[in-house]
């Protein structure tokens, strides 16, 4: 993991002190709500339905056991005993009183954490592959690059108040586990024919009201130029992005409206930065600095390659299933990465109680070099598990409720907090997720359905990534009651899902009670229509929407199909 320097450490403490000053002025009535809002947002503080929400940054999803214990402590002492892991690899609390905000930021700073730029119209926490540095299919470890970009984007004075939020995702593997096409900037690390490292740069992706996939602006940018190139991308956006309408303010709208003109403007700006700007040359990342940061991400000393162990053929079914779904290939022989499922009956997807956070931290200390990852699909990952430890880990993970063998299956759904917590939401998403989980409680059936991405958002802001789900569910508000739009055929850009694309809506929205029946009807249609070896998404692509739409419409008893 990245090791904080004294500079990093005093920086987060300075940020906590600055926030305390702002909070005190606000609480003393000197800093009105309107002015305080943008300041608290850039420290991760929203005002929600019941209390402020705090979004804690987990840079590129990497957490230490010590940090997770602190997150558990904060949940226990300041919240109501739980937190919610998000698709952007962050952690959210929902019940911390604002008056305790500065104390919480101090506690976070004490373990090298913060809420910097987890919200607001600025460059957000940079996300990456949860298997970065351990994935068997890795081309280049993205973490040192993510860290350089984290530093560059942190309190960037020119880009603190952009037209709208700005999200960067980085992948360094053959498989895209970071959904880079869906980000304002998506970066794919690659090696060219000469073995040099660079980035494929996508720009202008995003969800929300207008889902758009990022377009390639550079097929290969030498890695050391990335900060200057990002500066060009963001500067052109800062100058020309729309500010008259929040729904049209994301960079995707600018890229869509201007097309090649935007690309040309970025390239011209990039050339001028390099040729003319004071200090531009200093922003080219020196190899020595890269090496210094990369040294933080060296393989932990305790990781010793070993012979790969065969899977016992006579192992009990639950263990076999766990190996199949929750255990992932590793780049070190004798090791595996293991997903701790946060998708289990009785708890909202992505939620973890304080006790569970402590338990996961303890598992990571015992089995994974004290390191964890937060995955884009809202689970925790132990990146450094010895194959020899798998049977023991399975038993303790199961006892702690982390071993539901459902990764990539229908109950491993992505879900935002929805209307139960979020002030933006039009509808609740947690009860819908719970109803669907209940409907698909039979594990044999879940395995028979196979690989599928089910994504649920409580509103068009798309925190639950409904656009990219093979099945997407979107909460909408009509006359003050909750309705749900269902879409099919979306993709996050992973191999099994195909090129990133938004799903298509299958008709007018459904009533909340109809949703589980609709999902079941859609799944039944798939099972009736699939050909041998076909996944859900393959069948949708092959036969199109009408059969699914007909099956879904047959479930309407409260709503009309037209």
């Amino acid at each position: 993991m990245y090791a904080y320097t004294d500079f990093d450490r005093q920086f987060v403490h300075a940020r906590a002190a600055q926030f305390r000053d702002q909070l005190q002025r606000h609480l003393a009535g000197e800093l009105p709500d309107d002015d305080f809002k943008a300041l608290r947002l850039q420290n991760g503080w929203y005002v929600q339905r019941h209390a402020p929400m705090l979004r804690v940054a987990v840079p590129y999803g990497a957490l230490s056991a010590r940090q997770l214990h602190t997150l558990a402590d904060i949940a226990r002492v300041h919240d109501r005993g739980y937190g919610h892991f998000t698709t952007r690899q962050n952690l959210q609390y929902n019940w911390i009183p604002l008056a305790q905000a500065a104390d919480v930021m101090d506690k976070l700073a004490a373990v090298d954490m913060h809420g910097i730029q987890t919200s607001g119209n600025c460059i957000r926490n940079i996300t990456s592959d949860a298997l970065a540095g351990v994935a068997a299919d890795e081309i280049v470890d993205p973490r040192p690059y993510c860290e350089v970009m984290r530093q560059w984007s942190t309190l960037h004075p020119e880009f603190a108040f952009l037209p709208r939020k700005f999200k960067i995702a980085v992948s360094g593997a053959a498989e895209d586990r970071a959904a880079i096409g869906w980000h304002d900037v998506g970066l794919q690390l690659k090696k060219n024919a000469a073995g040099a490292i660079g980035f494929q740069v996508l720009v202008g992706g995003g969800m929300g009201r207008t889902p758009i996939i990022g377009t390639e602006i550079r097929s290969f940018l030498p890695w050391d130029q990335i900060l200057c190139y990002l500066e060009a991308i963001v500067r052109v956006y800062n100058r020309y992005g729309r500010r008259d309408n929040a729904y049209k303010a994301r960079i995707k709208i600018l890229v869509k409206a201007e097309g090649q003109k935007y690309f040309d403007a970025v390239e011209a700006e990039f050339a001028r930065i390099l040729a003319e700007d004071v200090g531009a040359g200093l922003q080219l990342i020196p190899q020595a600095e890269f090496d210094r940061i990369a040294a933080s991400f060296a393989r932990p000393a305790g990781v010793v390659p070993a012979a790969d162990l065969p899977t016992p053929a006579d192992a009990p079914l639950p263990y076999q299933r766990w190996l199949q779904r929750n255990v992932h290939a590793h780049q070190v022989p004798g090791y595996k990465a293991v997903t701790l499922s946060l998708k289990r009956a009785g708890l909202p997807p992505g939620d973890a109680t304080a006790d569970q956070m402590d338990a996961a931290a303890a598992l990571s200390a015992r089995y994974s070099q004290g390191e964890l990852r937060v995955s884009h699909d809202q689970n925790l990952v132990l990146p450094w598990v010895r194959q020899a430890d798998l049977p023991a880990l399975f038993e303790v993970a199961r006892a702690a409720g982390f071993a539901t063998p459902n990764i990539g299956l229908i109950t491993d759904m992505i879900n935002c907090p929805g209307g139960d917590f979020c002030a933006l939401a039009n509808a609740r998403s947690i009860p819908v997720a719970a109803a669907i989980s209940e409907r698909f409680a039979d594990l044999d059936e879940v395995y028979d359905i196979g690989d599928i991405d089910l994504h649920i958002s409580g509103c068009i802001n798309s925190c639950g990534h409904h656009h990219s789900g093979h099945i997407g569910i979107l909460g909408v508000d009509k006359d003050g009651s909750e309705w749900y739009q269902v879409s099919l055929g979306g993709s996050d850009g992973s191999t099994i899902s195909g090129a990133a694309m938004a799903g298509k809506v299958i008709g007018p929205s459904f009533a909340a009670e109809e949703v589980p029946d609709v999902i079941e009807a859609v799944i039944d249609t798939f099972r009736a229509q699939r050909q041998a070896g076909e996944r859900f998404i393959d069948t949708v692509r092959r036969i199109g929407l009408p059969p699914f739409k007909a099956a879904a419409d047959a479930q309407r008893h409260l709503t009309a199909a037209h």
Partner: protein
Amino acid sequence: MQFITHASQDPWHAAGGEDGPQPHPPVRAHSLLTLEQWHAVRQTWPATVPAGITLANTVDIETLAADLLRFGLVVLHFPKWVDGRAYTQARLLRARYRFRGDVRATGDVLVDMVPLLARTGFSQAQLRADQKLDVAQRALGFFAGHYQGDVLQPRPAFARDLRQEAGPAAERARAELHAGQGI
């Protein structure tokens, strides 16, 4: 950072008449002109009298590149404090065009913006009427250094010796650099 707290002590004055800006303002020292006024007089304005100019945050600095040496002050505007376009204008003025005159922030300028203003090259700020000078000065003091290069410090953290940025000597240097004085 210099804080413009009393208009009466500000040497710069808008070239306005009773009906708004004069279309062809007379040559006077410390005249603060609109872009339109500048366009009207730029052919005849003497090089020996630095002008001040007020720009909307939509103006492309590039279009004034040839004139910048004739300005003693560029006033950039924040219509809302969360509209960050003027930060880019200021940074380009300094980093690309090497503008050496004053750059002033006006409009909805909050004390909490002051660190960003300083780092993007503003030398003066005219705070919103309800803002407090002592809080603005305090706002400049929280961070010993930043990660990315900026106008005050073009070297990013990775190109500096960070050990020199902690400790009392560095604190003093920082205090001097940021010493706020109202005029």
